[in-house]
């Protein structure tokens, strides 16, 4: 306890470094909180239910069954369609759930922000972290479905960490960007719920990109999720290595979104305390 003299933190509004950097340092200091929040979200959600953690795995399976029943007649050309849908669905759910949860806690988690200091980004990071835990758990049912449907499981499955990390970075960037607007206009959260429905259908989760006419394909390719879903599917469903070109595009988009989102959010997050 006598060490406090050496490490005394000093807060001085006259001498502040870059806010984005300050946020980064603080997030590192509060890293254990991120772990606690993820732990809370993963466990508290299932504590009262009998099925517990198994629910995380059963949930996407249910959606997969429904979607496959509906769409398998239309997309008969895709072999192992059920596994194809599930692989796309898992990565899509990871993205949509983490961004939604992150925005909700940043924009609506205000009570806490108005009472104590916290690097607010921590809540977006933990939302993505929770999504990541759920995604990793859902890889088990994906492997099972692939076995059942007869899709070959290849060693590239282990490379799935790469798309997971890239989607995580992209989701965090999007969360921070949209939350920056949400600080001023909370209805952005609701608008996002509508937008994400459209976004889902503009991403080849249920279909293959090449069934679209060329002109449409060009526009759909501007959707970054196309590349993330593609890489994820390459390693899992197709059991192939992704091309360096696609990896570069995905990594570039993820990094850029994260950097811009982080920077903007760090500038405006102080406003949250001012909102009554």
């Amino acid at each position, binding site marked *: 306890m006598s060490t406090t003299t050496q490490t005394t*933190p000093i807060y001085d509004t006259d001498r502040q470094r870059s806010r984005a950097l300050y946020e980064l340092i603080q997030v590192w200091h509060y890293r254990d909180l991120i772990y606690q929040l993820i732990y809370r979200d993963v466990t508290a959600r299932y504590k009262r239910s009998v099925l517990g953690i198994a629910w995380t795995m059963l949930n996407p399976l249910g959606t997969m069954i429904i979607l496959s029943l509906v769409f398998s007649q239309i997309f008969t050309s895709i072999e192992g369609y059920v596994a194809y849908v599930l692989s796309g669905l898992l990565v899509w759910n990871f993205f949509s759930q983490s961004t939604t949860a992150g925005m909700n806690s940043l924009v609506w988690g205000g009570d806490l922000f108005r009472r104590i*200091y916290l690097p607010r980004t921590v809540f977006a990071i933990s939302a993505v972290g929770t999504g990541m835990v759920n995604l990793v758990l859902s890889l088990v049912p994906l492997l099972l479905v692939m076995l059942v449907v007869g899709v070959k499981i290849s060693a590239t499955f282990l490379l799935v960490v790469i798309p997971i990390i890239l989607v995580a970075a992209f989701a965090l960037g999007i969360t921070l960007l949209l939350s920056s607007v949400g600080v001023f206009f909370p209805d952005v959260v609701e608008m996002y719920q509508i937008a994400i429905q459209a976004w889902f259908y503009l991403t080849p989760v249920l279909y293959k990109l090449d069934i679209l006419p060329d002109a449409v394909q060009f526009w759909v390719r501007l959707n970054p999720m196309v590349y993330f879903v593609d890489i994820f599917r390459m390693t899992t469903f197709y059991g192939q290595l992704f091309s360096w070109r696609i990896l570069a595009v995905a990594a570039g988009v993820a990094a850029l979104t994260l950097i811009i989102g982080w920077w903007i959010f760090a500038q405006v997050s102080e406003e949250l305390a001012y909102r009554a």
Partner: protein
Amino acid sequence: MNEHKEPMNRERVIQLENVRVKYQVPTESARTLKEFIIRSVQNRGVHTQEFLALDGISLEADQGDFLGIIGANGAGKSTLLKLIAQVMRPTSGRVYVRGRVAPLLAMGAGFHPDLTGRENIFLNGTLLGYQRGDLEKRLEHIVDFAGLWEFIDAPIRTFSTGMNMRLAFSVATDLQPDILLVDEVLSVGDAIFQEKSLERINRYREGGMTTVMVSHGMDVIRNQCDRVAWIDHGQIRYVGDPGTAIERYTTAMHEREAEPAL
């Protein structure tokens, strides 16, 4: 550090210089993006009203000080604490805070009803910026002080308000902070626990902790503080001797009550 009381060179730990906090309150319902866009397109603009919560406050506190803040509701007391707690940045002016701040205004912030008392210690502790490892080491001490061993593995939704407060206080003050911010919370809990927590605060104070307390309880203010600031409409009306501050404040309040409201 608390055991031996060596003479301290009392350093300045809190300094506010000409601090202003201005809230922008939208007068119409322009808080949604939809509304904002419609208004901008129609060229109607969005009107906001400014509200000065703090208007040119200069205040300081040294190591070991016990500073009280009194004033009517809405005078700006809580905003002042928020500035020191780093929750809010001033619109203008300077806020300087040296040391680790424990905000008691956040008692139980982030407690999750479905998690156990033990799990909530970790959640609440990390929210206050502690590391997991430290909390593990202090766990026994924290539960001892709160006197909650019997219930520590029960979900916190089964706790009474008093038990919640005891746990929250115990987590927030387990280690001596450099600065303690108290917002009207010591009145919660039973008499024995109140006494116990005041005793801890006073022990820390001898160890050099600075306390800033906001309260409407004039007895606590009189007994605990060595300096008191009276804030009125975002401005400091008086700083200094607690007796004088309380007297001036209560006199002004009585006069205001006697007059018809403006």
